[in-house]
C-alpha cells in the first residue's frame, strides 16, 4: 500500500546516487529537485507541483537516483513501490501518457546531445549510400534474401537515386540467386567472397575457376563450360563450388541436348545431395529431358513432384505447372 509520509522543511527525501526503488507523489507542500546539467555542469532546480510524481525514472529503470530531492516547506509525500505504481498507472493510463511525453522529450534531447558529440569525431554517413552499401554487403556475402530486401527498399525510397540502376540490377540478380542460379556480377566474384567463406587459398582458385565456367556458360560456350565445371567438381569434391558444379554440369548437358547424360547427372545429384540448393531445379531439368525424349509419364511424374515441393508463387512452380499442362494438352490431342 502506498503510504503518506510527512517531511519537515529542509529535509531530504533522497540524495543523488541513492539506490532506492521508491516512487513519490507530492500531496501537499513544496519539493525541489536539484541536478546538474550534463553539458555545462550548472545546477538545475526543478520545483515539483502538488500532484506530480518524482523519482520515477530511476525506480523504473532500476538505477541510482539522478537528482537530490529536497523538501522546501513542510510537505506530505505519498511513497510507493514500483509494483504499486504500475497497478496505479495501468488503471489510469493518462499518467503513463503524460510521462511518456516527458520522457520522450528527454530522450530526444539527450539523443541529440550525444549525436552532436559523436559527429565531431566521426564522419556522418548519408542514408542513401548507407542503405545501398548494406545491400552490396549482403549480396557479396550471398545473403540473397536480405540483399533483395535492401535493394528493393532502396528503389522504393530513392527511385531516381544515384544507385537506382545498380540497385535494380542487383535486386534481380539476388532473386535469381535465391532460385539457385549461379551469381553473375563482378561484385560477387570479387575476392571478398572467398575471404568471407574463410576457406584456404586453393579454394579461392577453385572459386575463380567456377566463375570462369559460369561465364563460359553465359556465353553459350557449353562444351567449354562443361569441361571447366567437371574440373571444378573433381578438384573440389567436398567444397562449396565442387558441390555446386554438379548441378552446372547437368545444365551444360541439357544445353547440349544430351538428355541421357543430363538425367544421369541429376539423378546422381538428387541421390547423393538431397539437400542441394538446386534440387528442385534438378527435378525440372530431368522432367524436361524426359519430355524431350517423349517419355511423357516420367516427365509428368517429375513435374508433379515439383508442384509438391516448390512454393506456390515461385517461378519454378509456375514453370512446372505450365510444362505439366502442356504435356496433358498434348496427350489429349493425341
Amino acid at each position, binding site marked *: 500500500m502506498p503510504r503518506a509520509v510527512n517531511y519537515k522543511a529542509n529535509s531530504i527525501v533522497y540524495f543523488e546516487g541513492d539506490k532506492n526503488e521508491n516512487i513519490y507523489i507530492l500531496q501537499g507542500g513544496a519539493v525541489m529537485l536539484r541536478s546538474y546539467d550534463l553539458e555545462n555542469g550548472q545546477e538545475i532546480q526543478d520545483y515539483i507541483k502538488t500532484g506530480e510524481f518524482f523519482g520515477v525514472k530511476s525506480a*523504473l529503470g532500476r538505477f541510482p537516483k539522478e537528482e537530490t530531492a529536497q523538501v522546501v516547506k513542510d510537505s506530505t509525500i505519498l511513497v510507493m513501490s514500483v509494483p504499486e505504481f504500475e497497478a496505479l498507472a495501468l488503471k489510469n493510463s493518462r499518467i503513463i*501518457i503524460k510521462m511518456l511525453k516527458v520522457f520522450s522529450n528527454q530522450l530526444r534531447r539527450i539523443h541529440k546531445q550525444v549525436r552532436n*558529440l559523436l559527429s565531431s569525431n566521426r564522419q556522418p554517413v548519408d*542514408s542513401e549510400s548507407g542503405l545501398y552499401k548494406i545491400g552490396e554487403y549482403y549480396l557479396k556475402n550471398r545473403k540473397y534474401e536480405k540483399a533483395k530486401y535492401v535493394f528493393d527498399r532502396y528503389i522504393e525510397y530513392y527511385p531516381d537515386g544515384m544507385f537506382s540502376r545498380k540497385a535494380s540490377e542487383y535486386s534481380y540478380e539476388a532473386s535469381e540467386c535465391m532460385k539457385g542460379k549461379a551469381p553473375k556480377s563482378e561484385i560477387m566474384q570479387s575476392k571478398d567472397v572467398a575471404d568471407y567463406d574463410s576457406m584456404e587459398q586453393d579454394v579461392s582458385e577453385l572459386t575463380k575457376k567456377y566463375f570462369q565456367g559460369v561465364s563460359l556458360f553465359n556465353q553459350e560456350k557449353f562444351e567449354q563450360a562443361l569441361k571447366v565445371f567437371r574440373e571444378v567438381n573433381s578438384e573440389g569434391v567436398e567444397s562449396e563450388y565442387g558441390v555446386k558444379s554438379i548441378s552446372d554440369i547437368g545444365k551444360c548437358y541439357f544445353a547440349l541436348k544430351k538428355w541421357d547424360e543430363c538425367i544421369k547427372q541429376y539423378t546422381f545429384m538428387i541421390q547423393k545431395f538431397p539437400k542441394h540448393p538446386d534440387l528442385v531445379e534438378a527435378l525440372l531439368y530431368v522432367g524436361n529431358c524426359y519430355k524431350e525424349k517423349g517419355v511423357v509419364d516420367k516427365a509428368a511424374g517429375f513435374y508433379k513432384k515439383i508442384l509438391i515441393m516448390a512454393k506456390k508463387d515461385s517461378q519454378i512452380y509456375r514453370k512446372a505447372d505450365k510444362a505439366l499442362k502442356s504435356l496433358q494438352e498434348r496427350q489429349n490431342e493425341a
Partner: protein
Amino acid sequence: MKLDMEKFGKFAVRFEPGQMIFAEHEPGNSFFFVQSGRVQIVKILDDIEKNIDILQPGEIFGEMAILEEEPRSASAVALDKCVLLEFTRENFEIIMAGYPQMALKLLKTFTKRIYDQKRCFLTLTLDDEPAKVADVFLMLAENLMRDSAEGVVGYPRVEFKASIEDIAHWAGMSVNKCREILNHLASQRKIEIYADKIVVTNINDMSRYVKSKRNQQK
C-alpha cells in the same frame, strides 16, 4: 509479457527466420513489440556484420522512430519464426491510451534508453582518449552489475563479452584508434584481450583512473 492477440491481432506482422524486418539507414516510422520469436539487431561495421543485441518476446525495438524522423540506426532480422506487433507514429497515441500495458512497457524502455544515452554522453565528454575507453568498461560493468542479482564473479576482475569494435562504437572513435589504446592498456596489464572477450584485471583501478582524469578536466 505477451499481449492479447484478440485486441492486438490487427497489428500483427509475421516474419520467417532470416527475414529482414528493417535495414539500417532505412527511414523509420513504426516501432515493434516482440510477441513471439527472437529478433536479432545487427550493424555492418567495417564490412563485418556485427550482432548488437538479441531481443526476446516482450521487448520493444525501433522506438526512436516515433520520436523523430530519423533513419534506422541498425538492422533488425527475424532469428526465429516471429510474430511482431507493428505500431506507427500515427496510431501511437491511440494505442497508448487504449493499452496501458503497452504504454508502461514503452515507458520502461524509455527510462533505460535515457539512462544509457546519458551514460554514453558522460563518456564522450572525457577529453582523454584512453580515459574514454576505460570509461566504456566502467559503463559495461555497471550494466553487468545491474543485471545480475548475485554480483559479478571474480570481482574486481571483470570479463566482458565485448569486441574491439563494440568498445570503439561506445567510445565514439575509430576501430584502429581503439585497438591502439587497448593494446597499450594490455601492455600495462590493465586488460587482457582474448578472441571472444576482454578482461579488465581490476575494475576498481580503472574507476579510480577515470575519476582522476575527470577531475583534472574540471
